[in-house]
């Protein structure tokens, strides 16, 4: 049973998370994940102080799999992942992790079990929550639809391409 002090962010954020989560659940009943994501590519966002402009898809996989746990400046990488049922999560599990939900769960339990990571990824429940936490946590990295990115966070290119570029790998 994982008990995470990080999840105690106060009533305001919890209420927004629940509302957004419900919105995602409602939205997810319409069309496939791919259709939903096609409306906007998935952007990889990091805390503004993170000194990284570009990641290769392999580096991104290493970070999301926690094989790489530090940025080049030795800041600890904090991975934020959307809760189940969101289209963004389903897309990232398929395209970056190349796993389904069951494999994803087993992967992280095994990783913690081998003492390779002290904790699993931090779960976020909405785009608003993602933005607030990436803004607040140095070293954090997460993902969201490109058309929902604000200037609170920084988008990193993947294989040298930004979400609006042709050939961007997370579309």
């Amino acid at each position, binding site marked *: 049973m994982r008990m995470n*002090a*990080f999840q*105690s962010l106060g009533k305001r954020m919890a209420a927004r998370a629940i509302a957004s989560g419900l919105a995602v659940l409602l939205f997810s009943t319409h069309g496939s994940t791919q259709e939903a994501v096609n409306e906007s590519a998935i952007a990889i966002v990091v805390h503004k102080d993170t000194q990284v402009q570009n990641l290769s898809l392999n580096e991104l996989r290493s970070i999301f799999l926690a094989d790489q746990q530090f940025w080049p400046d030795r800041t600890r990488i904090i991975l934020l992942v959307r809760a189940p049922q969101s289209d963004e999560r389903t897309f990232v599990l398929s395209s970056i992790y*190349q796993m389904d939900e069951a494999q994803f769960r087993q992967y992280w339990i095994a990783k913690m079990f081998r003492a390779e990571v002290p*904790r699993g990824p931090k779960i976020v429940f909405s785009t608003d929550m993602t933005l607030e936490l990436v803004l607040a946590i140095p070293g954090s990295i997460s993902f969201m639809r490109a058309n929902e990115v604000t200037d609170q966070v920084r988008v990193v290119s993947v294989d040298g391409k930004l979400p609006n570029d042709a050939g961007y790998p997370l579309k």
Partner: protein
Amino acid sequence: MPIIARAGQSIGCFLYVLATQAAFAQHSMNPAGTDLSEPEFTVMGFGDISYISRDGSSQDGFAIGQAVAHLSASLGHSFGVFGEFSLTARDTEYVAEVERFIVKYAFSDLLKLSAGRYHTPIGYWNSTFHHGAWLQTTTSRPEMVRFGSQIVPIHFVGGLVEGNIPGETLGLAYMAGFGNGRHSNIARAGDAGDVNGDNAWMFQLHTSPARYRGLKAGIGYYKDVVSPTAEPEVDEKTASAYVAWAKEAPEIIIEYLHSTHELASDSSVSGDVDAWYAQFAWRLSGKYRQWKPYARYERNRIDDSDPLLGDLGLDYDGGILGVRWDFNPYAALKGEYRNEEFDNNGRENNFRLQVSFVLAKL
């Protein structure tokens, strides 16, 4: 260390876990915000219950497997503590054990230092699956790395340095350790110090190429001087190699180990150990995705002249066929047929049914 003292020590650790959780409960009442330098705790549990039927056995029946508790604590960005504690059913009692207890400081991906009690990083299985039957495909570990094995020193007490070697193509990583070797009871680690002052050391190098995600291959070396109870000292050298394809369709694990044991006082008295297994599994697709058939063959051979293991009757041949059904996201039912031969004493059949589970939440 006497069993009672060991059990007392382990129970103390269980109490420590409970106390820590109580502290956490109090701590979590106050919103912690996003300050990740504050302690953060993760608790997991594993357990399994089996039904075992053997040829000609009068003791067929249910067996409670291990009840395992894991605690990991992140104390700031770089420092963490990990503990694994088990309760194992025996004929007349439950035995409590501190399986792993590790403190780790991570300087970077290249350099992580840790100290404590580990599962010895020899080969693949011993440092991948540990306790917790739910994580492994089969009902039990291969015989060469079964808990209590004398072929491989399952536990190691000491320090480790590990890290990733830069370069994303090959995905190279290393691990080097130095610490107490086997206890005079050679199935146990030297928990209270090295019994002969001649420390054990080991090195392991493995690769996980980015191009073939799921593939892991490695080699390792382990060296110790062992002082068995009432026996002369023996030099132990073990080399291991493995290749594993961890994706589930297929899942392939092949591991080989070769040990040389040589009397420290007379190098002409020596013997070799060859042990290996190959496991193959395939996760079905579509509506049968919860099912995973599997098979494993394993073989251990120990020279009769081996001064450490030669007279312990550890030769083994075994084949298993089974199927795993993940009927729940956190639980699995496994049915397994085994045909085995221990110490060349004739083959025997047995059947196992096991339900295993994990108590965890991501």
